[in-house]
């Protein structure tokens, strides 16, 4: 007959959770109070503080990712045709490109 492991009692689990939370909270509070808000990025090495522009975010609009692509092959500056007749092609056949026009 095998013995099932005892279920841990409530109190140790509860108090260890509270302790862990308190430690993390204190760590973050210390960091914020020392002026090192992690969401604001690295401090400027002790130099004079930079002016902060406060902006109200009206609408979070866009999901944007920038992927540097230095090794990519040359892309034609957008599809250019010599005729004014529309050209219909299958989807995804050529990249969409923004360029000066």
């Amino acid at each position, binding site marked *: 007959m095998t013995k099932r492991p005892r279920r841990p009692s409530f109190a140790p689990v509860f108090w260890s959770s509270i302790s862990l939370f308190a430690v993390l909270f204190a760590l973050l509070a210390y960091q914020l109070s020392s002026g090192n808000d992690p969401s604001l990025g690295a401090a400027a090495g002790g130099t004079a503080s930079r002016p902060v522009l406060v902006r109200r975010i009206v609408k979070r609009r866009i999901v944007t990712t920038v992927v540097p692509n230095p090794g990519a092959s040359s892309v034609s*500056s957008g599809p250019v045709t010599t005729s004014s007749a529309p050209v219909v092609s299958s*989807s995804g056949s050529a990249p969409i490109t923004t360029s000066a026009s």
Partner: protein
Amino acid sequence: MSEHDVLFDAMGSHARLLIGDPEPGMAPPAAAAERARQFIADFDAKLSRFKPGSELCALNTDPRRRVPASELLRQAVRAGLQAAERSGGLVDPTLAEEIESAGYVGSRAGVPGAPLGAALAEAPPRRPASPNPKARWRQFEVDDEAGSIARPPGVRFDTGGAGKGLAADLVAERLRGYSRFIVDCGGDIRIGGPGALVRPYEVFVEHPLTGDRSHVLRLSSGGVATSGLNVRIWRGPDGRYAHHLLDPATGEPAWTGLIGVTALGDTAVEAETLSKAALLSGADGGREILAEHGGLLVHDSGEVERVGPLSVRPRIRLPQTAPGGAA
């Protein structure tokens, strides 16, 4: 998921439409694309300053102070005035005379530009452009109730500063009801549709010096536009290089230290306005202008700088302690 993809010449450049699946009751994508193509052709016919029969040319030559105007012309003039207001007068729609004096008289569609590298080598010292203190654009009034536009006779309007972006935005309004779509009017781009939120479009940014793709933007909505000196650049009869982005204060081509700017915005018109204003402002002003929506600055050297939201990278940083254990 398939998309209808159509490409055609328009507005002295190219236009491209990608249209996804229609909601019930909507026309097939091919029919929507054809209607959009006709709309863009009509837009160009009415608003080109290079077509003597256009409504814009009629407005510019009309001796009356108040001139009846179609809804499309009123929209275009209003977009130009809003671009001027937004940019503090840097994107000035009343420089038609100056740009013609600089040598940009007819359409330059299909005309290869002068080499940008050579033009940069001979260009005058770099400095930011400034608004024209006369601010002639403030003399325009658009009256939708009366269906007219008022301005002092002789002050000409050029929709070039916001035209392609406006065309992209107006076509996008007509494509509501499709799963996702992208409207590209000569590189001024508008994206929409709920499907784009799930499956964003990839938009490549062309480098003005090399022609290579310098970045890829993954966009789920809004607009993106690029302004640059690499097209519509020419050598004038006096031997000097000139291009189409003028300093409103001097009426001369602006050499600001930037050769290209790509801007994001809520709409294509906004993106186009921000990209032009940033390029005319130079690097410092350009960073400020692009700070809210984000964008790319390309310096004379070819260096590409990410600005605003595009420069942010997620990070987690723990408190640092000084060597020796002191905090």
